[in-house]
């Protein structure tokens, strides 16, 4: 991918005193796609986003946002990025509408254009009813939506969303997903950090895994993704599943059960097809056959369970 589109990060490092928040992160995020930034708490996701958002300078490494360097040319980068912070701050005494108007004016829009843009955004995020109430009355989820609207004020081509779904109710999550997908389809580069992995599975086209301040190499991600993971099987007669699996060659001790079905380790899509065919041949009336964990969650948990070995994956 060329340097002039999307986000390109290579070998970025940042420490705060003795705390090495980001040690070595390298990744790319394409325009027109949603890229997930996945990692446990304290893995450096927010610090990385702060560097992308031109707020802190990296100690080393290189960042390009649509070809611009946030360190040497922050103004160009700021005109292009919309940043939604993980901290939900708002001017408590100002109304939702005024907040958006002032944000638009901070991006250099005139008063009339700012007012029109604020009205558009209030509708987009569904805060019409609360538009003229002070932001201190907003609930956490509503503040989250306001924060997203603030990030969209200047129609940015690169979106940096830090935990956008936290605090949202299920309906709002679906709306957020639809909105973010649409924003990406319109050609924007969207980077979303989250640890709600089920959420990201349906949202993201690509994923970057961060672990202890470093991005995980593509090889490790690939091997984690192909490692066996549990699939859940349900049938009209649950008792018929296990014997049929054993008959088709699955080791009896690897079969487990949970509240909703029988779990069996499967190493990939092809293996899944073979297992399902075996069940059907044995005459089991299968009603559900699906991975028990999402793709991202599976990879994430696997990476967590198998820490990087020395010399494995991370290159300086």
């Amino acid at each position, binding site marked *: 991918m060329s340097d002039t589109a999307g986000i390109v990060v290579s070998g970025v490092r940042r420490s705060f005193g003795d705390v090495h928040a980001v040690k070595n992160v390298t990744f790319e995020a394409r325009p027109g796609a949603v890229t997930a930034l996945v990692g446990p708490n304290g893995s450096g996701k927010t610090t990385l986003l702060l560097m992308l958002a031109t707020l802190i300078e990296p100690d080393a490494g290189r960042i390009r946002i649509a070809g611009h360097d946030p360190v040497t040319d922050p*103004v160009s980068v700021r005109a292009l990025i919309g940043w939604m912070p993980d901290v*939900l701050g708002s001017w408590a*005494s100002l109304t939702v509408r005024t907040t958006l108007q002032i944000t638009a004016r901070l991006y250099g829009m005139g008063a009339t254009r700012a007012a029109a843009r604020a009205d558009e955004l209030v509708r987009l995020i569904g805060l019409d009813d609360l538009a003229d109430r002070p932001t201190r009355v907003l609930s956490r989820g509503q503040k989250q939506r306001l924060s997203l609207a603030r990030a969209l004020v200047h129609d940015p081509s690169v979106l940096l969303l830090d935990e956008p779904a936290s605090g949202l109710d299920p309906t709002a999550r679906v709306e957020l997903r639809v909105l973010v997908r649409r924003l990406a389809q319109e050609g924007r580069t969207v980077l979303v950090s989250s640890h709600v992995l089920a959420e990201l599975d349906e949202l993201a086209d690509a994923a970057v895994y961060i672990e202890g301040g470093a991005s995980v190499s593509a090889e490790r991600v690939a091997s984690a993704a192909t490692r066996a993971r549990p699939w859940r099987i349900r049938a009209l007669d649950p008792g018929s599943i296990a014997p049929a699996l054993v008959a088709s060659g699955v080791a009896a001790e690897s079969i487990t059960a949970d509240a909703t079905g029988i779990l069996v380790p499967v190493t990939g899509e092809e293996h899944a097809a073979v297992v399902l065919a075996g069940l059907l041949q044995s005459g089991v009336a299968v009603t559900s056959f699906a991975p028990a964990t999402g793709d991202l969650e599976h990879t994430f948990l696997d990476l967590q369970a198998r820490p990087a070995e020395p010399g494995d994956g991370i290159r300086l």
Partner: protein
Amino acid sequence: MKLWAGIGVIVGLELRQRVRGVAWYVLLGVFVVLIGIVTVLVGLATTSFGGEDSGGWLYSLIIYFVLMLGTLIAPALSGNAINGEREAGTLATIQVTLVSATQIVLGKFLAAWIATLAFLVASSPFLVVAAALGGLSVGTVLVSLLVLAVELGVIAAIGVGLSAILGRPLFSIVVSYLAVAALSLGTLIAFGLGGVAIQSEVKATTVQAVYEDGSDSYTCGPPTVSTYSAPRFDLFWPILSANPYVVLADATPPQFSEYGSPTDLFTGVASLVRAVQVPPDLSPEFDYCNSATFEPGPSQEETYAKTVPSWFVGLLLHLVLAAGALSWAIARTKTPARKLAVGRRVA
């Protein structure tokens, strides 16, 4: 974005938040009531013994009162301008927009200054009352209002500066108050202690009249020399020039009566400060025998006339302090940030 456009948006943001809050109105109300009480009491006092043309005293007292309350209120209005916004999690959302750190800091400074000047505007009815009493010169009004406005701006600038330099809002507000106290009271204390600490020996020669018994005729006795030490306040008077009250008093054109005594508080304070410039006579001669040597001391007007003004030194020092605080604040608010203070939040 153009410098002033960005500053304008920040000023608008600050003032909108201010006018939506209750605290500012409460402060304004309390302020007006206090000024009202002072005006009535001082008005009664000055008209009862000052007679006509007592407007100068009343006016200068009100202005001093506005300066005092203004310096007490300005740190509260400015001392958390930047770190307060950081604590609320909104500073970073401003920093990622197209306004620069310079625009953010200057906008917040101007907004704090305007909010403080509102207190001066609120006191204007009482200033009009003072003017109606007569005896007030146009020069006094113009210069004192200008210097007062500048001094309030200096304090607003120091407050905003400290709010960017120090992390915690409470801490920066307290340090702003300490800065105000250092200028207003600290200069007085330093001046007083310095003058008392450095003393010079005075050799006074006294000649007494010796009366002969039972007659009015007398002869002059032998001169006697006594020594004592005198405080050298004249060495420390420049410290006083950094005091905002002294700057205000010294800058306004002096108003003396026909007998050479001050007709407003500014001239009174300035005369006292000017008199301190005169070094003590280290070898005075007191001749109580030859009455011809008795001379009346110089009037306050005469002393004022032969000593040097210092207000521009103090004012310049204040402006340098204000500019320094603001430029330090801009440097600390610049993003992308290289260094961060320990425990400081970015967003």
